[in-house]
């Protein structure tokens, strides 16, 4: 037996590809670890980082984004044990890895099932194709801190959006550890920003932020809070994903809903003629 003292990890935020502490200097205790307690200012910093990343990420080829999401799966596979050590079941970790693979494949296919040529009645070329909506705020599921988190983040970013995520308040450690995975997966800084802390404190600032284009309230079980966040989101007509009416089975086929929720459809007309 060694008498060497273990080096503990500091659980920080993940913003703009870096790991800052909360600017507020606060933390809260989870599983004997101090976890950063994000503030309104941290939300704003994260939105700035997410907005700055939109141009590069949405401008990357779909193929490139798919490669990077697949790389996330590779990195996550390599850290399987770490997540199990945080209390995740092996089945959840496996499903989280496979979910990255599933969404990686959608990068260059969603336009092929959610876009189309339109046979308009006239001499026009007419095509509708999806585009990312921009910055998406996400309240991650509180009860599925890895699989649920991956299941809400991956579909938002694969199409070119960037996200600010409020991690599971009660179980934030997998989210911070996932940030370490993302940071080593060639994912550009700012595409995913993860804040830990109190959803009731940061959620309203995120929902009301005028530079956020959409908000996913999947992780807001409190109906009253969800309603007030949706109201706040109406200020700039954010696209809203409401909390599920019944609990989500995170192991089921995710479908397309979380991809299409954060897509705009652009229709282009062009005349045909000599």
């Amino acid at each position: 037996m060694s008498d060497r003292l273990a080096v503990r990890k500091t659980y920080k935020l993940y913003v703009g590809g870096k790991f800052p502490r909360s600017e507020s200097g606060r933390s809260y205790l989870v599983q004997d670890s101090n976890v950063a307690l994000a503030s309104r200012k941290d939300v704003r910093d994260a939105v700035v980082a997410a907005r700055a990343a939109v141009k590069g990420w949405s401008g990357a080829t779909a193929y490139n984004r798919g490669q990077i999401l697949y790389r996330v799966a590779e990195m996550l596979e390599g850290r399987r044990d770490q997540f199990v050590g945080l209390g995740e079941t092996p089945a959840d970790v496996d499903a989280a890895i496979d979910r990255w693979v599933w969404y990686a494949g959608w990068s260059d296919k969603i336009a092929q099932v959610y876009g189309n040529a339109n046979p308009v009645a006239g001499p026009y070329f007419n095509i509708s194709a999806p585009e990312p909506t921009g910055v998406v705020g996400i309240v991650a599921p509180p009860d599925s801190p890895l699989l649920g988190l991956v299941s809400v983040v991956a579909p938002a970013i694969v199409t070119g959006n960037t996200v600010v995520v409020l991690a599971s308040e009660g179980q934030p450690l997998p989210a911070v550890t996932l940030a370490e995975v993302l940071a080593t997966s060639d994912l550009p800084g700012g595409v995913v920003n993860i804040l830990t802390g109190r959803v009731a404190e940061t959620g309203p600032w995120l929902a009301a932020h005028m530079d956020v284009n959409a908000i996913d309230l999947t992780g807001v079980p409190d109906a009253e809070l969800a309603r007030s966040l949706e109201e706040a989101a109406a200020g700039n007509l954010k696209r809203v994903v409401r909390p599920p009416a019944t609990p989500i089975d995170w192991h089921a086929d995710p479908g397309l809903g979380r991809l299409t929720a954060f897509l705009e459809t652009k229709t282009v007309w062009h005349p045909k003629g000599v």
Partner: protein
Amino acid sequence: MFEYAPAPESRSIVDIKPSYGLFVDGEWVDGEIRNKTVNPATEEVLAEVAWATEAEVDSAVRAARSAYENVWSRTSGRERAKYLYRIARIIQERSRELAVLESIDNGKPIRESRDVDVPLVAAHFFYYAGWADKLSYAGFGEGPRPLGVAGQVIPWNFPLLMLAWKIAPALACGNTVVLKPAETTPLTALLFAEICQEADLPPGVVNIVTGAGDTGHALVSHPGVDKVAFTGSTDVGRAIARAVAGSRKKLTLELGGKAANIVFDDAPIDQAVEGIVNGIFFNQGHVCCAGSRLLVQESVYDDVLASLKRRMALLRVGDPLDKNTDIGAINSAAQLDRIRTLSEIGASEGATQWSPPCSLPDRGFWFAPTIFTGVTQAHRIAREEIFGPVLSVLTFRTPAEAVEKANNTPYGLSAGVWTDKGSRILWMADRLRAGVVWANTFNKFDPSAPFGGYKESGYGREGGRHGLEAYLDV
């Protein structure tokens, strides 16, 4: 012209064995008859390769059937996807090796195998990997079923890329395959067999049988094959269509072409000339969708021709492994004969032949980049696929005439349009009877974009969502 120092890519990365067997049921088996594959740039014998007999083809089909019934059809889409992603990753990791081997066996410039072929191969596997667990979303109904065993025969012009076009969608949809590479270019397919082993792909899911036409015939006419996919000449395609007649085999054919590359007077000439050169001299013109008929609007004919000749004089023909080479070796003596024969016919029928001054290596199979002017639609070089670096130049006056001439061919694989006017591009695209229309570009390929022909250029599409249909029971 600039003088370039030689910049050869090292061959030390490839390990060519003296002899190769057949890859059946995950293992190497010796073949009865042997054949040799040569480096077309030097005529050096590279390796001895098996020439599969009917019995050997039969054992490969049986292996594929068994793997289909016992393993692959019971493997979930999610797991099939992960095998294909693995293969894609190994291709990326071993890309240099694959590129060098492809150039040695095929004769194509290393710049092309390195920058075009191999990256597209990896991308194709990535793309179809992603479909394996999403087939219910592909627009063919819920849970579309695979066909079973696919017999696939591919040509020598893009050996590994054509393999990818065949194997990736087949496996993604849940089929197993027996693939026959061309007899002059088997080596990258055989290296791919090793990659399947490295990926732990279950035995029998991919089987590679080398050989020539009789091996291919045995494969496509085998009663245990549910699906036949062929890329190659229109004549062989016709023979295969006859061979599968009356059976339940699903057939897709990607055959020859005689594409028109149409240059209007408002096109940016320098850009168009780059496109013309790329269209016909890319891969020595061994491209089914090559822009082998240049249609130039009369008013800019002199400018385009002068510029084209200037550009052609800068093309570097020679060692495929030299990184500065633009045009490599003709793939085989037989193909060189065909190119020479058709060129002689072109001259004897009255067209004017021109090539830039260009010294060719003494050994190997070479043909200088060539254009024919004064070509009419009746000339054989305007009608028949030459499959070499030979361009026939015709002219037109009006868009309607361009369409008439472009469509005046039994083929319909591709076409090119060069004009500054977007509405004209779309007007032309509507009228061109071709499966791919490139506008202000040429010879662009992407795994997400369907590719395939109209008319006698074949049927079925490879690539994209449409490419799944060939391998599903729909």
